[in-house]
């Protein structure tokens, strides 16, 4: 067994505190072993962190702990200095508005129009009564249209989400996350339902948007080549622990073989 590197001494300048700081995060589901066994790392404002690891390593659970779609059993998740795990339900909702999320299965509302899907990203900022009648704010609608136009979906605005192709749907999913004006993007296997060509396009889209709006990204991805190409830093998970944590340029075949137990290539 290789040694576990817990919180890596990642260089973060004192002037720029980390956007996200995870300390000794543990998760156990009822009547089972721990899924995460003490994860610690920090994400700086300009990072694109790719999390790799085989199925069952805990990648999905890890990013869901950040916005508490999964409730951790122990640890701290500091987002801009606030511990997400100590928020009551109202504060949690307010904090979730600042964290965008992109999913493997896109998770669009299939029977709703493309633009309404994007506008659901503004629900946290839209009053309940307004949202019941889908009376989204004018400026939100304008931004949704601009985002869709930019992603080449202008002529699909009124179509139902289930009429789009996989790549188009994921772009709607990205627009939904971006319209939140997030301070952090959580991305869960964004390319697993897509073919290789579309996968690279989608990854480039996420990276470019993150750069342009200066959003740090935490991205699960089992495709190592994509992780190395698009990530600025790679964290390897295995069995619920961080096996390595290094800038993408320093990840070599030996490290990869270690994390995938020689299964890569």
């Amino acid at each position: 067994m290789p040694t576990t590197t817990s919180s890596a001494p990642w260089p973060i300048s004192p002037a720029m505190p980390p956007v996200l700081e995870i300390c000794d995060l543990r998760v156990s589901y009822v009547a089972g072993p721990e899924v995460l066994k003490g994860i610690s790392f920090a994400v700086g404002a300009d990072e694109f962190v790719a999390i790799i690891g085989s199925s069952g390593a805990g990648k999905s659970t890890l990013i869901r702990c950040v916005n508490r779609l999964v409730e951790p059993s122990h640890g701290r998740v500091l987002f801009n200095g606030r511990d997400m795990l100590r928020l009551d339900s109202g504060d949690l909702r307010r904090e979730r508005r600042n964290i965008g999320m992109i999913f493997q299965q896109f998770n669009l509302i299939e029977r709703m129009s493309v633009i309404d899907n994007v506008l659901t990203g503004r629900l946290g900022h839209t009053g309940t009564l307004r949202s019941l009648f889908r009376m989204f704010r004018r400026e939100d609608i304008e931004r949704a249209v601009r985002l869709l136009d930019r992603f080449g979906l202008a002529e699909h605005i009124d179509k139902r989400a289930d009429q789009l192709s996989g790549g188009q749907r994921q772009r709607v999913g990205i627009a939904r996350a971006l319209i939140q004006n997030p301070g952090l993007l959580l991305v869960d296997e964004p390319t697993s339902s897509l073919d290789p060509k579309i996968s690279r396009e989608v990854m480039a889209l996420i990276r470019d948007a993150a750069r342009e709006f200066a959003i740090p990204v935490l991205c699960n991805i089992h495709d190592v080549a994509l992780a190395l190409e698009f990530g600025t830093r790679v964290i390897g998970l295995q069995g619920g622990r961080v096996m390595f944590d290094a800038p993408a340029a320093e990840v070599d075949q030996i490290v990869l073989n270690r994390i995938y137990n020689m299964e890569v290539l």
Partner: protein
Amino acid sequence: MSAIVAALPGPVPYRPSLRKGLQPYAVVLALLVFVAWSLDYLDIDLERLPGLLGRLADVLSQRYFPPDLEHIRRPDYLAAVGETFQMSYAATVVGMLIAVPLAWFASFNLSPHRRLLYPAARLIIAGCRSVHEMIWTILIVEILGFGMLPGTVAMTLFCIGFSGKLFTEAVEAIQPGQVEAIRATGANALQVFVFAALPQVRVAWTGIAIYSWDVVFRASTVVGFFGAGGMGAFLRESVQRVDSHRVAAILLSIIAIVFVAELISAWVRDRMLRAVA
């Protein structure tokens, strides 16, 4: 024979189990044995069955034939038919206005409050269901007296239990991914329900709503028998007078009207489902 795969070096690590293969058949056999035992215990004489159809025909032809069709064309009876329709319609609409929020509270995946609202809503729906609709009718006639009101109230309770349970089951069967996505945007519980659940259950709920009216209407045709107004009141009167020709006519009219109601609901359902799909 050319082998596609090489033979295993050692013993085969899998052996088919006759015990597991027989299991489903054993369950069916056990059920049938229980039926046989029940028939024996209840002392049911199956030899009387073959004559049943013949005797039924005798009773129908001698006692109930001809049906007094004049009776069911009287204006007061036709008015009662209209009242029965109105009772079932009002009870279904009011029942659903109550059942929809209850279904939201009672769905474990989306309930806004799992410790309080969830069990409370479950209890109300289960309570409505655990009392048979005719028992509800009898109870409420006791409290409110005769008339259309107790019938409508009883049918409303029936509708809450019936549609509430089906609505809840539909919500609990939705895809969790869409719920995650809406929740992750910072939406509140009602927004999650409206945006993640309603689009997914729209078709199922429409079907359930129309089916519920269908079932409520069928029940409404007899609540009058217990004093709660509508067509059933005429049935009771004729039964008490042992006026078999009238009873026959009323039963025929109920069968015909329920049949027509089912045709209507099937048609409406078809149209609605196409509209919301």
